[in-house]
């Protein structure tokens, strides 16, 4: 019972608010939610460096794609290439309908899920880039599509969800 008894100072008592400390800490500015994308640099010359590069891996098999993405990430860590982000795109589900036209028309369904993982890299020197590409290509597992491309704003926007109500209101306003 001694544990349960809580001595909370009531509001009229002089000891009200005795345990407060947050007013002593420095004030934190609340962070803005949306991040600005434009982080790209290409320095031309003998040390030609690529800006942000996306390595996109797509496949139907989830475990394979995840393990391959992990392998690529670790490889870049070992080769001291800066990996800015490593994320997954939402999975797409495809229904395969099968129209058999012998006798009775039957529709056999198959449900395929397509998974995509993206590893974003920065600061790749152009002398090293083809070697990296070759290493990744030679260790590509079966059934995995590989795509290396430069990061654009459209790629960033594709990760965000569109808000139809906001767009409607904006259209009404302007």
């Amino acid at each position, binding site marked *: 019972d001694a544990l349960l008894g809580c001595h909370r100072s009531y509001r009229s008592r002089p000891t009200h608010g005795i345990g407060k400390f947050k007013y002593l800490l420095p004030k934190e500015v609340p962070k803005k939610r949306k991040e600005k994308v434009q982080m790209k640099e290409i320095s031309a010359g003998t040390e030609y460096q690529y800006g942000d590069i996306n390595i996109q891996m797509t496949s139907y098999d989830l475990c394979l794609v995840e393990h391959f993405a992990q392998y690529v990430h670790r490889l870049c860590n070992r080769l001291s290439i800066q990996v800015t982000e490593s994320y997954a795109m939402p999975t797409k589900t495809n229904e395969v309908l099968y129209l058999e036209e012998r006798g009775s028309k039957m529709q056999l369904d198959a449900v395929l899920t397509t998974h995509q993982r993206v590893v974003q890299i920065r600061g790749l020197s*152009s*002398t090293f880039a083809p070697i990296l590409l*070759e290493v990744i290509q030679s260790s590509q597992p079966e059934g995995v599509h590989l795509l290396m491309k430069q990061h654009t704003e459209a790629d960033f926007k594709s990760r965000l969800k569109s808000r139809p109500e906001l767009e409607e209101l904006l259209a009404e306003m302007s």
Partner: protein
Amino acid sequence: SAAAPRPWRLFGAMCLLRLPRISQPLEKEEEEMVALMEQIELEKSLYSDHEMRKLEEEEQLKRKMESSYDEDEAHGKTVIMAQDLEEKWEQKFLRFKAAPRITDADKSNNRTSLNRKLDSNLMLLVKQKIGNQELWLLPQVEWQPGETLRSTAERAMATFLGDHIQAKVLGNAPYGIYKYKFPRAIRTENNVGAKVFFFKAFLQSSDLSQAELKADCLWVTKKELGDYLKSEYLKKVNRFLLD
């Protein structure tokens, strides 16, 4: 003012790789690892919709055998049972026949065809005349002043395989260099020796029917390179080949 003529002649050579089409067979440890991982994943995973349906139907069948409860439930059921679906899929799978991994060209060891050794990289070797010797080399062509070394290598590829080759050259930087001095008889002040710069390219399409073969060419793997190339040349070439 013109720079003093250098004593080295420059060549650009192209190493054209045909990428493997199939994965290589796994080693013993890799196979054991794969089996272990599959078992772990199977035990960790949850039942899918199909398997749940199958289990429910099995239970219902069992209950039907014992007593005739589920007459009402059976009416709402679909005609196709999960077990039938599985059997249908099994039959379809058995009917599917995969393409053979070892092709005809492998059996006959025909080194001029591209269908050989589908699980490893194949490189192009061409017979060229250097000095008064006929040697097997990677296709090379002399560098003309005013063009980049990469375009020299592309020209080398075009002279031996024709113009319509879909190959992707990797980068502007050479992968390796081989330099040799001419024998004393031919050596002059301006012509001490030659330097060959190697570039790499990936063959995109495997259709070479449009290619005009100007000289004998072979497609060889890294291990078979030793049969054709000279030892010094081979050493430098092996430095930049991944396998």
